[in-house]
């Protein structure tokens, strides 16, 4: 009896510590300076430049992730081939790589003296220290989050429905767009939200491969780092902004995953096209 009570208290205490530990830095960001001053800082050109740049580079990176990651995920989800598990592990690897390793890897691959450096140089392309380098860094670290979620989402699509669509005369492409994508869309959206959040926070690989220049390669996390010494309040304001955006993405993610369509869309999936 006593033992159980103690154990219960210990579990509760551990949970309270964990919760407080995770929450405290967030609370600190918002409590150190008044909200009015935080908002006032957001009109600083360093902040607006970084915000615009972050949104732009992340939008391009996510477009690439969706465009290239979706077919890759579909292939891995639907085909069984030797080395498939290895391919999945390799795709997920950037997820657990330290950002500094990702940065070194990108320089070693796409840098001037990197594996592809000579080829790129011959084409007159230099990626290092450009906005393209930011996009590459973001896409590299963020895409695995989308791809792994997309693989899971595609795997959950009932193969019988796909087969039914095919027997009813829908082509592969049509089946993919009218059956598979709608059924997998929640998983895809969830993966995309996570990937976007990770991309927005990208720091290490970017500062190493793309450098830091206001309005060109200085994303919000880089701007926070460089404002840290000059103006702590501005750094706090940008951090608060990222907390809000990331929090909103997380809420959107939860809502997407919980949301149940009011009617099963699959019923209409096989209707002849208008």
């Amino acid at each position: 009896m006593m033992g159980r009570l103690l154990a219960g208290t210990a579990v509760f205490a551990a949970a309270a510590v964990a919760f407080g530990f995770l929450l405290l830095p967030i609370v600190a960001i918002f409590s150190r300076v008044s909200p009015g001053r935080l908002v006032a800082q957001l009109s600083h050109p360093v902040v607006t430049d970084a915000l615009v740049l972050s949104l732009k580079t992340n939008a391009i990176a996510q477009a690439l992730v969706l465009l290239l990651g979706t077919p890759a995920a579909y292939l891995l989800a639907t085909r069984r081939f030797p080395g498939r598990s290895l391919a999945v592990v390799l795709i997920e690897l950037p997820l657990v790589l330290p950002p500094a390793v990702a940065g070194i890897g990108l320089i070693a691959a796409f840098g001037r003296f990197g594996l592809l450096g000579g080829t790129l140089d011959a084409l007159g392309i230099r990626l290092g220290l450009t906005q393209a380098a930011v996009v590459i860094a973001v896409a590299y670290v963020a895409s695995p989050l989308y791809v792994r979620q997309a693989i899971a989402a595609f795997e959950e699509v009932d193969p019988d429905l796909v087969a039914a669509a095919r027997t009813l005369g829908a082509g592969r492409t049509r089946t993919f767009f009218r059956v598979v994508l709608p059924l997998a869309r929640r998983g895809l959206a969830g993966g995309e939200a996570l990937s976007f959040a990770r991309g927005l926070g990208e720091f290490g690989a970017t500062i190493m491969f793309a450098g830091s220049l206001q309005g060109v390669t200085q994303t919000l996390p880089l701007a926070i780092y460089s404002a840290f010494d000059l103006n702590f309040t501005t750094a706090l304001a940008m951090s608060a902004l990222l907390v809000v955006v990331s929090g909103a993405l997380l809420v959107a993610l939860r809502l997407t995953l919980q949301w149940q369509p009011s009617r099963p869309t699959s019923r209409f999936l096989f209707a002849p096209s208008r």
Partner: protein
Amino acid sequence: MRLRTLLAAVAAIVAVSASVLAAVALAGGSSTKAPRLTVFAAASLTNVFPKIDPHGRFSFGGSNMLAAQIQQGLPADVFASANTKLPAQLHRQGLVTTPFVFTANRLVIVVAHGNPLHLTGVRDLERSGLRIVMAAAGVPAGDYTRTVLARLGLSDLVGKAVSQETDVREVLAKVALGEADAGFVYATDAKTVAGKVSVLRLPPGSQPRVLYAAAAVKSSKHLAAAKAWVKRLRGKSAQKMLRAAGFLPIPH
């Protein structure tokens, strides 16, 4: 069953971490009676400071970043800056003891090894299409770079830089890796990657006074040791090592 697996995994992680820590502690050796000091030092001192004190714990970075960390209360015993401004500022705020100048340096331009673009000097950096990097304003190396360019009437180069780096070693790395064509660093930085970069000197009259100052952090738990550490920087053996690394004698 599940719980047991989880507990086993946690136990394994704890065991591995503990043995790694133990190994590190053994390797580190606790033979020294003097306290291990934490030294926040300018990035340009990265190669030489561990030679001066092999037992020290170092955090190298842009001096401005380190000063901000001390202002925010990060535990440091010694602050060694690539300028005199930051230590003086921390001293005025009551955070550090009176700073000492302990060495000097020169600013140079580094280009790819062998100078494939045949740049002859700072004025050639005006050539279009060149990718120039420099340290950001506020970073000592960045401030010196701006001083030099202003003296030469070349301040427009600041706006043409493709990256404003957070410390001088980042500038060096971008040039050594070939990502940038030219960068402004200290002569001592260039020496550390001599096989990868070539050096262009700045016109004599444009050279800024690059002085390094150090001070003990007043909140240090080992203030006496920290003060002694700073004092030792002006001693013979430290000065010899600084000179060997290419640093200049303390000007009078």
